[in-house]
């Protein structure tokens, strides 16, 4: 299966099953399209395209067909899917716990209009995680990660800085045991920024491999959704803190991460606003919410959202060439050093490699399932008591979603976010078609940028 598209003046072919990417001229683009439609004869192809290209000869077509044949033989074009039968075996290998999302605070000092975490409380009681619970979570992670050396812990909430002392003690505890247990802990912090101070910056720069800083871009856009408990905008309260934090990390190993909604479908402006402030590592995601919310994005928004991804890609190319580039998370794909096929087939690891743990020590498949009783898997005292939930997620891979069979993006998104699918369709083994459309567009842009910046 191939996917071919034109973007920003480039003709691009993605060979879905091998992951190979080809940049082709107009003639080859048309010939490959005809071959894909089942026309393989040089004379027939020549007859089809000769009126479009004045200077083309039958020899040109024959030569291109020979190149296509060579790429086929090398498994780089029209390649067969050789991975399907291996998927369960690969998923099994990828199902060892290695990461936890530690909800150290189910409370928040902001009152954001779109919060999927129910104002930080995840439809449950307010609460801060005790150090004893956090310590148990670290022990649980160590105990249930045989054969894995790199372990990840994200301090999440609510707002984790409301429980900063426990975050620090948890890091100290993990560092204390990691050598003896032959583990290497990698910590991350996701924060709204209000409580960032010198201590947070200093400790994080020493211990946190990545920090995620929440900002939605332009002041009026940010302040429309991201408000204090008193209903005031937060941009002016956090922007200088974020600047100081990012600069102190030498503009590396962090993300400014925003959310866009129906109110800023022109979100490229928000990303560019952050770039204009000299933030270099940027991310922006569509809002996750019920479709009946006034700020929800719907199918009718897709064209303008796609246009914004194009605007962003073109602006990024321009800035890179001008020596003032910045990174956008979804366009940051390492085509030579990216994930192996095992990872691409297995997906994000929800419910198997990755778990979320609440302040009370309850265990969920990921942060987006927290508060949903159906997906409460157990707790730190009793362990996983609902093995059927683990089994359900072990059964999730890119081939378990029939919608992905004919999708060029399947080895990039691994079948998409199970939580999005569940919230949209009530079934983790489906796909959220709205998310798919945007994800495919982001991949198309990332591939185009790779070609443009390497020509």
């Amino acid at each position: 299966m191939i996917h071919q598209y034109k973007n920003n003046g480039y003709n691009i072919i993605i060979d879905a099953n091998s992951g190979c990417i080809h940049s082709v001229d107009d003639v080859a683009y048309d010939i490959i399209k005809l071959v894909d439609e089942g026309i393989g004869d040089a004379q027939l192809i020549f007859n089809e395209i000769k009126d479009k290209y004045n200077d083309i000869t039958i020899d040109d077509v024959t030569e291109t067909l020979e190149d296509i044949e060579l790429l086929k033989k090398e498994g780089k074009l029209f390649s067969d899917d050789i991975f399907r039968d291996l998927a369960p075996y690969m998923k099994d290998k990828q199902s060892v716990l290695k990461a936890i999302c530690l909800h150290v605070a189910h409370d928040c000092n902001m009152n954001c209009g779109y919060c999927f975490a129910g104002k930080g409380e995840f439809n449950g009681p307010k609460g801060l995680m005790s150090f004893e619970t956090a310590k148990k979570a670290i022990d649980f992670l160590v105990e249930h990660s045989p054969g894995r050396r790199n372990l990840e812990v994200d301090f999440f909430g609510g707002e984790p800085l409301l429980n900063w002392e426990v975050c620090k003690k948890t890091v100290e505890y993990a560092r204390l045991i990691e050598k003896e247990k032959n583990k290497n802990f990698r910590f991350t912090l996701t924060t709204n920024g209000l409580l960032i101070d010198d201590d947070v910056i200093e400790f994080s720069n020493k211990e946190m491999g990545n920090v995620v800083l929440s900002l939605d871009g332009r002041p009026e856009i940010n302040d429309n959704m991201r408000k204090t408990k008193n209903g005031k905008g937060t941009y002016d309260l956090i922007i200088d803190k974020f600047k100081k934090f990012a600069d102190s990390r030498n503009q590396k190993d962090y993300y400014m991460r925003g959310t866009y909604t129906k109110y800023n479908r022109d979100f490229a402006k928000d990303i560019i606003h952050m770039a204009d402030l000299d933030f270099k590592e940027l991310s922006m995601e569509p809002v996750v919410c019920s479709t009946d919310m006034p700020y929800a994005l719907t199918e009718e928004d897709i064209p303008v959202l796609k246009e914004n991804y194009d605007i962003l890609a073109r602006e990024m190319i321009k800035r890179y060439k001008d020596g003032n580039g910045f990174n956008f998370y979804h366009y940051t794909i390492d085509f030579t050093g990216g994930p192996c096929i095992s990872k691409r087939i297995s997906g994000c690891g929800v419910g198997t490699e990755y778990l979320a743990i609440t302040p009370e020590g309850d265990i969920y498949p990921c942060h987006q399932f927290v508060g949903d009783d159906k997906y409460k898997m157990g707790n730190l005292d009793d362990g996983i008591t609902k093995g059927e939930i683990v089994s359900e997620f072990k059964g999730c891979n890119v081939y378990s979603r029939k919608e992905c069979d004919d999708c060029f993006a399947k080895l990039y998104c691994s079948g998409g976010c199970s939580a999005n699918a569940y919230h949209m369709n009530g079934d983790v083994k489906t796909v959220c078609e709205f998310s798919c459309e945007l994800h495919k567009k982001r991949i198309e842009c990332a591939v185009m940028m790779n070609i443009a910046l390497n020509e």
Partner: protein
Amino acid sequence: MKRIKTLDTRDLRASVKTGGCGECQTSCQSASKTSCSVANQKCEQCRDK
């Protein structure tokens, strides 16, 4: 090739044998949290080289 330029990409077939170590970052620990951005991760073995 005159009309087709193939980009340098990881050989996924070869990675059947060399991959699967599980030491790479989980995607929701980076910057997504609401989408599955597996392809945006780096391979831990490639990173070490």
